[in-house]
């Protein structure tokens, strides 16, 4: 760190790190300098001229833009003298020359930096009497964003964001001089996963988001800070509602996680909350086999009686639970306690057969923090395409590679969003990951360059399962290898909202709350409180589904889980649910899975319950309540508590906050993590450490080749899919890419098909029809099929599929 310097701002001496931008130093010391183009998370450009200040120089006073001027020792600055004031008035008068006076119909009015700063610093009157420039009023530049070029003041915040931060510069300044406008290429819309950020940082009403346009006035909004639950990054958000309806989500600048940015899925994926399809009343299957609305008492009696019969007939181990990764830690804890103490089973899984070993996920030794990316010498990303599954983590890795000089090695079966910033990109055939790992470990030949990059520590490795064609063991073997790299830390990847919190609450056969393993002292302490813990070891998701199919497991409790759409082998889940003697579902919607249940309880969800979540690095964050749940819906923990009572067990849970206190008391690592702290001084969250210290085991992962006549399958998730939350969000639903068979040009030529032609993709467990997409980023012999798209069947986690024209 450089020596601090002393600067005099408005006759007051302040200290600042050398090289810091003057505008920031002033702001940190209570002097606000007006600005439009400068944004603390982007590089300065000095375009809008609003931040002009006067500094003393040997040649007399000089006017400079404070956003491009680094502070130096002895600098004397005046931010409000008459000269500066005149400059500010002049700049604003010029900016307003072409700005329409349509504030009364503008969404930004009331929270508009141009409006506010005109009031505070403007001349009050314009001398401009000529005609303003005119453009067609708002034009859609994507499905989500509208652009009103007349309102634009050309600050370049949006274009710089899309180039510097998200790396998809689909908007740029076009034309010149008085005709300059921001626009897209004529036939290439601003279809960025991060487009909503440009709306949030636009200092005028030029960019507006279709899901929010004309829905509310800023002064009518009620808001609360919370945490996004679409992915596991733990992005901090501001929920905003009017008249009890969630209307908008803005990103909150939280240093450890999202740094102000959000993906569009997070920003706009809230419409499902108010969907008319939400469940409002408990449902029970009647004699005719139809789900019928009943009272809570009736539904609880029915479920309690049926579950009790299974338990008394076949024991608790005949019951299994799936889900819990969509809710809060408090709900997950209640689910874990319900299954283990009221039912008596260890068969529970919050992962949908999609991830890695839970001990690796939440307890790996040398676990990385997201912030480690800031100091990383090199980064290895070998897992899902971060842009699709961990969007804000993608932005952090991108920043590390682009702005902070970290070397980046990306290993993935097809092109990823990070490729343009990667020092080395390795593309390979799914199933052959074991061989690629051996090559990388040897570091010879084509991998020499990758090893060279990774020799620069500290190394941060983001490891996960690239697709369902790849063995989940590969990530563990890679983690074992990574530990030999200099100062290596490992961030295991799992995407589901609160999967790390659910694992911490024991929603996994082998783990108990607080990352405790069965048979340990911590487990005994838990037993003192919970009563005797079930002795038999439990099954994971796949084991549960297979058990249901074979009849070893008779009853299933689903909490916010849709295995039919969500596990790689959807057909197995469908057979399992059809064969189950009893399925009890706690859900917000009738999904393909809860539709097959015998009892369905309507659950409250995001923005309706208060609680905590734990993100990918083990950071506990608060989620807050802003809107009421629909109809008779209730929180998961309350439903489970009542159901336990019908089984004759008292879970002793009275409120979410009380559950949080119980967790704090029972789970060592959660000690000191409480709502008061998370609501006030620790809004950025508290990292719970005290990991299991799980040492990843290296195992040789055998390569799996597709059978003769088959192509290797890359079967991976996309940001927008046919999950129920996306399906019920009208703005995002059309953005799912849909079923597709991505083929390398040589394979397309071999099959005699071109872009858009229909092909049949058949695996041992399912088949689907898909349009061909020519994708030269694949290796020849590989077909990429996006997972869980509207109107498609499931292919299962198979190494290969048959593709025929």
């Amino acid at each position, binding site marked *: 760190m450089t020596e601090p310097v002393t600067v005099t701002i408005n006759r007051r001496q302040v200290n600042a790190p050398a090289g810091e931008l003057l505008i920031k130093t002033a702001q940190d010391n209570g002097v606000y300098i007006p600005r439009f183009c400068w944004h603390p998370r982007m590089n300065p450009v000095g375009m809008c001229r609003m931040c002009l200040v006067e500094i003393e120089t040997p040649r007399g006073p000089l006017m400079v833009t404070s956003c491009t001027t680094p502070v130096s020792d002895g600098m004397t600055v005046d931010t409000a003298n008459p000269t500066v004031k005149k400059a500010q008035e002049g700049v604003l008068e010029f900016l307003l020359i072409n700005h329409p006076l349509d504030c009364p119909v503008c969404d930004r009015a009331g929270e508009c930096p141009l409006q506010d700063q005109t009031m505070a610093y403007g001349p009050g009157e314009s001398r401009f009497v000529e005609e303003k420039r005119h453009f067609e009023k708002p034009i859609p530049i994507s499905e989500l964003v509208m652009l009103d070029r007349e309102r634009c003041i050309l600050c370049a915040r949006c274009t710089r964001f899309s180039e510097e931060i998200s790396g*998809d510069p689909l*908007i740029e300044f076009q034309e010149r001089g008085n005709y300059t406008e921001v626009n897209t290429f004529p036939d290439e819309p601003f279809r960025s996963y991060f487009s909503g950020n440009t709306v949030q940082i636009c200092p005028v009403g030029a960019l507006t988001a279709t899901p929010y346009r004309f829905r509310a006035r800023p002064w009518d909004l009620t808001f609360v800070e919370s945490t996004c639950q679409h992915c596991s990054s733990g992005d901090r958000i501001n929920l905003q509602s009017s008249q009890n309806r969630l209307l908008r989500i803005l990103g909150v600048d939280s240093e450890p996680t999202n740094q102000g940015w959000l993906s569009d899925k997070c920003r706009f994926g809230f419409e499902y909350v108010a969907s008319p399809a939400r469940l409002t009343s408990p449902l029970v299957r009647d004699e005719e086999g139809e789900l019928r609305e009943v009272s809570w008492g009736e539904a609880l009696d029915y479920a309690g009686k049926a579950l009790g019969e299974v338990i008394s007939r076949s024991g608790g181990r005949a019951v299994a639970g799936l889900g819990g990764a969509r809710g809060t830690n408090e709900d997950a804890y209640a689910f874990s306690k319900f299954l283990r103490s009221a039912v008596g089973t260890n068969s529970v899984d919050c992962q949908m057969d999609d991830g890695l070993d839970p001990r690796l996920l939440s307890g790996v030794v040398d676990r990385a923090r997201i912030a480690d990316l800031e100091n990383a010498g090199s980064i290895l990303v070998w897992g899902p395409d971060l842009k699709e599954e961990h969007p804000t983590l993608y932005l952090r890795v991108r920043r590390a590679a682009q702005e902070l000089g970290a070397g980046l090695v990306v290993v993935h079966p097809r092109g990823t969003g990070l490729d343009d910033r990667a020092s080395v990109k390795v593309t390979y055939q799914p199933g052959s990951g074991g061989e690629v790992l051996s090559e990388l470990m040897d570091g010879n030949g084509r991998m020499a360059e990758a090893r060279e990059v990774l020799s620069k520590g500290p190394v941060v490795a983001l490891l996960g399962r690239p697709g369902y064609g790849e063995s989940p063991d590969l990530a563990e073997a890679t983690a074992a290898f990574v530990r030999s790299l200099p100062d290596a830390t490992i961030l295991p990847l799992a995407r589901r909202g609160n999967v790390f919190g659910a694992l911490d609450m024991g929603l996994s056969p082998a783990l108990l709350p607080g990352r405790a393993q069965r048979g340990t002292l911590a487990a005994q302490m838990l037993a003192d409180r919970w009563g005797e813990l079930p002795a038999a070891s439990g099954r994971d998701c796949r084991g549960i589904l297979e058990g249901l199919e074979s009849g070893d497991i008779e009853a299933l409790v689903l909490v916010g889980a849709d295995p039919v759409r969500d596990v790689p082998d959807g057909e197995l889940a469908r057979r399992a649910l059809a064969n189950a003697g009893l399925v009890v579902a706690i859900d917000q919607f009738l999904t393909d899975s809860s539709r097959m249940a015998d009892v369905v309880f309507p659950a409250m969800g995001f923005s309706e319950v208060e609680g905590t979540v734990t993100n990918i690095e083990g950071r506990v964050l608060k989620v807050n309540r802003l809107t009421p749940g629909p109809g008779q819906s209730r929180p998961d923990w309350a439903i489970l508590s009542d159901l336990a009572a019908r089984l004759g067990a008292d879970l002793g849970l009275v409120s979410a906050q009380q559950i949080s206190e119980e967790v704090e008391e029972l789970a060592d690592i959660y000690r000191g993590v409480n709502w008061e702290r998370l609501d006030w001084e620790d809004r950025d969250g508290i990292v719970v450490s005290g990991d299991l210290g799980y040492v990843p085991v290296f195992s040789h992962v055998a390569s799996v080749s597709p059978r003769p006549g088959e192509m290797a399958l890359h079967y991976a998730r996309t940001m927008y899919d046919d999950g129920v939350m996306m399906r019920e969000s009208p703005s995002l639903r059309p953005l799912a890419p849909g079923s597709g068979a991505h083929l390398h*040009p040589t394979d397309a030529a071999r099959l005699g098909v071109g872009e858009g032609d229909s092909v049949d993709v058949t695996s041992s467990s399912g088949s689907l029809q898909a349009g061909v997409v020519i994708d030269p*980023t694949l290796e020849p012999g590989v077909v990429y099929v996006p997972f869980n798209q509207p109107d498609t069947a499931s292919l299962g986690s198979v190494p290969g599929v048959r593709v025929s024209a």
Partner: protein
Amino acid sequence: MVEIRSPSVRRGWSESARARASEIVGQYPEPRSAVMPLLYLAMAEEGYLTDNGMREVASLVGLTPAQVRAVASFYTMYKRDDPGRYLISCCTSISCMLLGSDEVLRAIEDESDVTAGETDPEELISVEHVECIGACGGAPAVTVNYELIEGMTAESARELVRWLRTARPEAIVGAECQELFGGRRSFDWGPFDRDSALGPYPAFGPLGTVSGPAEDQDG
């Protein structure tokens, strides 16, 4: 970035254009620096700068089409609308203006019946007014298909337009036009050399993009 993967296939431009493009890209340390000469290549390939041309350039230099269009739309010499066969550019900057370029431009517009910025219905003649073309010593100056003619008058401008209409030359060669219609020159152009013509893409000269005389460019 080092890419470890099998080579892929490309579609779009002619093979020779593609070869020339990669040569041009190779002359710069960063591919994106080649965007301006490549835009001329795109103009040569399709006659003017089409959306398709900009997309091709984008994929060649690793930019998005929007970024390429940002460059292309900033500079007026990248023609995004198909100009007529003869593009008459009349300089209206200060030296030319002081020596009567307004009359020259008016004469051209009047004789050709084409307003500056437009093209006649036959797509034979386009007229535009441009900023300084570096011929102040021979003001007022015009260019036809980027070939310079100095010392114009309103009368010679009318003759020039009539000549283009009737003679419809295969290629415009500056020295020839200068002899027919030009007046005072800024300096001695040296001996007449038909092969020196660069055609409509002046920036190709120093890059060696144009290998032969202008007439070969159309074929």
